């Protein structure tokens, strides 16, 4: 007992000292999806990467409370909305990097240069092949039409992925039209919203409903486990003309903290993560799409077909997120 107390006292002392060649990361991207990258980076450069994982909200509250004495150099999140918030709260700093600007397309990074997308996640339609013909599907907006009455399953509106999608639709159509559309979705629900994408996919496969909206990697993961499910991907909003801006994409990404103690190291890590050395590993581990367009996605991911992404800047999802959440509340989307 006493020894343990002494041991923890020792830890108390050592926590204060820090070595030079290191970079400290606060990450909302989970450990198993970032540690292999950090290990590879350490192996290549010798720079130690120290990190803790938590949800975005607590990590930002932590950065804010620590203020200019924060040990964190880099903040990683799994959606643009939270990065936009972090930037809005003054927790990040602008980064001038030719490498990042060359590697990451303009719509996947902050116009103010405070954060950069590192992997792309497409939120698309998945349908039951036995009950729906691909020709019946067209757009996100169309899911509000009465022909989908009692045929739609959705994940809860509390998930940021849905909030970003609706934010993007607000950006495109304005609030009144989007609200009518979300109301249409809610009217078409076959059952109450699900806690996660996988549950919604399973409900479609079981025939409780015919179509749902998910991030593609959940589809990939489920099909890997149960290849015989009658599910298929549909890319919406692909035609030319108005209202066909493309598939909604979001990013997982990162920004250097405003009070970073090792800003150069943090930028170097960020550049490395955007490079061909890391992009495949970063995206493929979770069946996502690399943010760097020069890098091909994993063959399995590529087999789902190519699509036209919506090129609206993902920062818009952050800017409009609060409005999207309130809109979904008004529309009764739980």
């Amino acid at each position: 007992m006493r020894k343990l107390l002494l041991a923890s006292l020792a830890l108390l002392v050592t926590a204060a000292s820090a070595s030079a060649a290191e970079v400290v990361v606060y990450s909302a991207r989970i450990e198993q999806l970032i540690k292999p990258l950090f290990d590879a980076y350490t192996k290549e450069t010798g720079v130690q990467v120290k990190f803790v994982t938590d949800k975005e909200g607590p990590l930002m509250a932590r950065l804010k409370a620590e203020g200019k004495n924060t040990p964190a150099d880099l903040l990683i999140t799994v959606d643009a909305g939270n990065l936009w918030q972090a930037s809005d709260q003054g927790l990040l700093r602008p980064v001038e990097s030719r490498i990042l600007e060359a590697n990451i397309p303009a719509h996947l990074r902050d116009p103010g240069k405070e954060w950069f997308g590192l992997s792309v996640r497409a939120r698309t339609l998945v349908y039951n092949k036995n009950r729906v013909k691909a020709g019946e599907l067209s757009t996100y907006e169309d899911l509000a039409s009465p022909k989908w009455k009692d045929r739609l399953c959705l994940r809860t509106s509390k998930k940021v992925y849905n909030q970003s999608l609706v934010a993007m639709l607000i950006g495109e159509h304005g609030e009144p039209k989007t609200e009518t559309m979300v109301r249409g979705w809610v009217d078409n629900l076959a059952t109450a919203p699900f806690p996660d994408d996988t549950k919604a996919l399973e409900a479609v496969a079981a025939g409780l409903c015919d179509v749902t909206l998910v991030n593609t990697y959940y589809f990939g993961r489920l099909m890997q486990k149960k290849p015989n499910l009658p599910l298929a991907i549909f890319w919406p909003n692909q035609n030319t003309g108005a209202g066909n801006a493309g598939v909604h994409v979001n990013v997982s990404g990162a920004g250097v903290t405003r009070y970073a103690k090792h800003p150069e190291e943090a930028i170097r890590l960020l550049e490395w993560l955007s490079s061909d050395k890391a992009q495949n590993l970063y995206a493929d581990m979770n069946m996502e799409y690399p943010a760097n367009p020069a890098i091909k996605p994993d063959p399995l991911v590529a087999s789902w077909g190519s699509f036209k992404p919506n090129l609206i800047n993902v920062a818009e999802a952050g800017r409009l997120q609060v409005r999207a959440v309130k809109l979904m509340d008004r529309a009764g989307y739980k």
Partner: protein
Amino acid sequence: MPWPLIAAAPPRGGSRLSAALAPWLAVLPIALISVIPVLVVVSSLVNPDRETWDHLWQYELPEVLGNSFWLVLGVGLGVTVLGVSLAWLTATCHFPGRAFFNWALLLPLALPAYVTAFVWLGLLDFSGPLATWLRETHGILRLPPIRSRGGVILVMSLAFYPYVYLTARVAFQGQGRRLMEAAQSLGLSRQAAFWRVALPMARPGIVAGLMLALMETLADFGTVAVFNYNTFTTSIYKAWFSLFSLPAASQLASLLIFFVLIVALLEYQSRARRSYAVSTRAASTPGRIRLRGWRAALALAWCGVVFTLAFALPAGQILAWAAGVWAADFDARYLQFAWHSLLLSGLGALLVGGLAMTLAYAQRLHPTPAMRVTARLSTLGYALPGAVLAVGFFIPVAWLDNLLIDHLGFAGQTLGGTLVVMLLAYCTRFLAVSFGPVESGLTRVSRSVDEAAQSLGVVGARRLWRIHLPMLRVSMLSAAALTFVDLMKELPITLMTRPFGWDTLAVRVFEMTSEGEWERAALPAAAIALVGLLPVVFLMRNTEHAHT
């Protein structure tokens, strides 16, 4: 951990003033640690976030207040019926299987409730095996939906009844058989004796467990999220994570605190003037009521059904999932996760238990209103959603750290990211879990015991050490075991305050479930259950002997 206790005892001599101040010397530091984070949260009320409030008030709060009300009512009823009936059976009756169920009925506590909830969702939802089988073989298209108010109440009652079971069981055990015999000799039937004597006498124990279960229900986010059942806590997180207003979230949480504080004070007030003490001779009488025939069968069946639904079935599913991912996911790091979990929960349980004992004992020696209110205030953290409390704790720590760095020339973070701070954070949240059982245990120790000891010259620390602690052994072990198991599952505080690299099994569960990988989360969840088993078995072995 006797060191904080000595300070709590009143000095033998000295003036009256110092006798009145002495307990506060021990109580105030404890109260400060637990109350400051709560105050940080409540201080948000100074600056109301009108915009977020208006929105929530219009579209969220009417619904979630109703939802929370029914949830608390339903779970309260559920855990009381389950906990009390099972505790009565295993503590005072004899029937086949009793020895097993006696400890096994505590096991649901070792499973994180949201993981259990997810297992139930998987088993009973439309795409689950039962519904699929019924559809394909019997043409039954729909079952009563599990994702419903009834479903949440059922699953949470099954997850949280062990709190009531444990504390009620200790209370019934402490009564001994003679209490019932005395009631019956006064002309009451066995049933009437249970309802009019045994049950009312066990009230502090039952209520202590009930309060814990309800505070956990109110603060829960993970379980209700699985069912997408919106509660007051859901709104708190929505204000924070979706509307990006930590102030609005803190303001909502403050209301939750006031509500719980009022309930706690009313409850305490209503039993303050009654005595629940049992004479030591009556309590030490051994022997249980022997159930025979259909009564024994019924007792066995009831325990069996609850055990199966609350533990065996979800644990079976978790084990099956864990077996599936074992080869891919298990590695040497799991030993480290398990060690971290064990060490943190063990140290945490000792510390929390010691502080709770100090608090409860000070309240016993000085049952003044101020002391009573202080004790209630110190145990409020358990009713707060974990992540909100974690921030409430983190802000003053960061503030102190910044002070040290900016004005005293420290090189970097000194407090944040240390185990000491992490353990103190555990105290702010889990003091209630230890305090409840210990306090209810103290109510069963008659004041005449104190006086007898005094007349023999056994006072102060010696009285505590020689008289009270031995009498409280069962309550203290229960308190420590409950806290240990809760700490094994703790997440938000661990996430926010852990030093770099100090991942635990619970953190592992979080990493897996936050991207929806529930099967992979089963491996660390099963490990939590296995490690959590240790104190349960230890507790039961020790408490059984105390009364037989």
